[in-house]
């Protein structure tokens, strides 16, 4: 790890757990929850955010000294919107079904609070390389939560992972279904995403009591 100094490594690793954008900073929940009913959609969403956040952080950091501070929000929004259009067009070209399924939620990356939050808090004050690492780190932290939620919702909800049946066949009653297991269709509905994240927060804060909030 000669490439990354200790400080740089912290930039990537911190957001993965103790400073996670979703469970600790409470950013970027908006567009994340509705698409986690399937693991595949979660992964695509995570990759899109990774791209937008890393590139956007670098762009903002490069032009940070010439943005007038009064109109910086609009400048930031335009940068993100341009990047999101690229993601959207690429998805429409190479993964049309998936982009239909994600519908407006790709567009909503623009207003994803993680992105604006990192621009404001980090990219405006730091150089491009650090901002790039910070972008990667925070996007990974976001991805981790998204993938955990997607994993459990798809596994418990439809008994599949990435569309492959892992618990046996529910129609011919093989695997777990032979002993009477049933899919919990409730996991596919939107409220369960909230409850799964609530449980993740519970587990994380029980393990690290420093994170517990005052009442």
């Amino acid at each position, binding site marked *: 790890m000669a490439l990354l100094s200790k400080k740089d490594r912290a930039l990537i690793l911190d957001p993965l757990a103790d400073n996670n954008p979703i469970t600790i900073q409470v950013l970027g929940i908006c567009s994340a929850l509705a698409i986690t009913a399937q693991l595949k959609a979660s992964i695509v969403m995570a990759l899109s955010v990774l791209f937008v956040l890393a590139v956007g952080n670098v762009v903002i950091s490069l032009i940070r000294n010439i943005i007038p501070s009064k109109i910086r929000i609009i400048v930031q929004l335009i940068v993100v919107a341009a990047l999101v259009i690229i993601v959207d067009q690429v998805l429409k070209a190479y993964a049309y079904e998936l982009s239909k399924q994600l519908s*407006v939620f790709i567009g909503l990356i623009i207003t994803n609070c993680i992105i604006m939050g990192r621009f404001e808090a980090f990219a405006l004050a730091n150089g491009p390389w650090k901002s790039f690492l910070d972008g990667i780190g925070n996007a990974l932290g976001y991805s981790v939560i998204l993938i955990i939620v997607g994993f459990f919702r798809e596994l418990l*909800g439809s008994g599949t992972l990435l569309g492959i049946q892992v618990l046996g066949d529910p129609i011919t009653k093989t695997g777990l279904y032979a002993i009477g297991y049933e899919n919990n269709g409730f996991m596919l509905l939107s409220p369960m995403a909230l409850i799964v994240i609530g449980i993740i927060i519970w587990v994380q804060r*029980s393990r690290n009591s420093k994170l517990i909030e005052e009442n």
Partner: protein
Amino acid sequence: MEHLELFFKSIFVDNMIFATFLGMCSYLAVSKKVATAVGLGAAVIFVLGITVPLNWLLDQYILRDGALVWLGSEYASYDLSFLSFILFIATIATMVQLVEIVVEKFSPSLYNSLGIFLPLIAVNCAILGGSLFMQSREIASFGLAVNYGISSGIGWFLAILTIAAIREKIRYSNVPPPLRGLGITFIITGLMAIGFMSFGGMLTGGDEEATAETAQVSETVKPALEINTDTENDLLEMLENSESNQDSLEKTNNEIN
């Protein structure tokens, strides 16, 4: 009738928070006190009511396939819809800025109660989401777009108001320490969302007439990502019968329609 249906559908069935999770960030951050929650909620209604119709006009006359035909028949083949994200967000950001300036000038008292929330709103997912859903559900007329903006705003207002009231009360209860604050708010929101799902029956109803009516509605207003209006039985049936859930959701929706 069309208006009334869209109104109740946007408030209860397709509630921004409980069905599509739009605007969760500010919903979680600003819901500690009822008074501030009311302020933000009112600002959201206000801004949605302005930006959704504006973006509807943009979509109708500039962005959609063949929308430029009013300029002359040689423009009929243009499709600028890939620009919608950037135009929508630019409209929203400028409108919010404009509203802030106008309100500050003409009503300082309103500015004092609403003002601090306005910059926050420019980057609220609910606002952009309102416009994007308006586009993807193909809202048919300007009047309906106004209606859709305001009623989605009311739905959001209702959600933040209830959670703020619950959070004020929950301070007196003994929540397990790791769940305090954020964790319990997530879980309560989940439970409230389950409660709101029961409104899904409002549009499907039980009898033949209502089903026919819903079919008409879903022709004009495309079904959202999550199916709220299907009954539980349909859902269970679907889950059992198919390999890929999303495929079957679409199939069953078509069958119902």
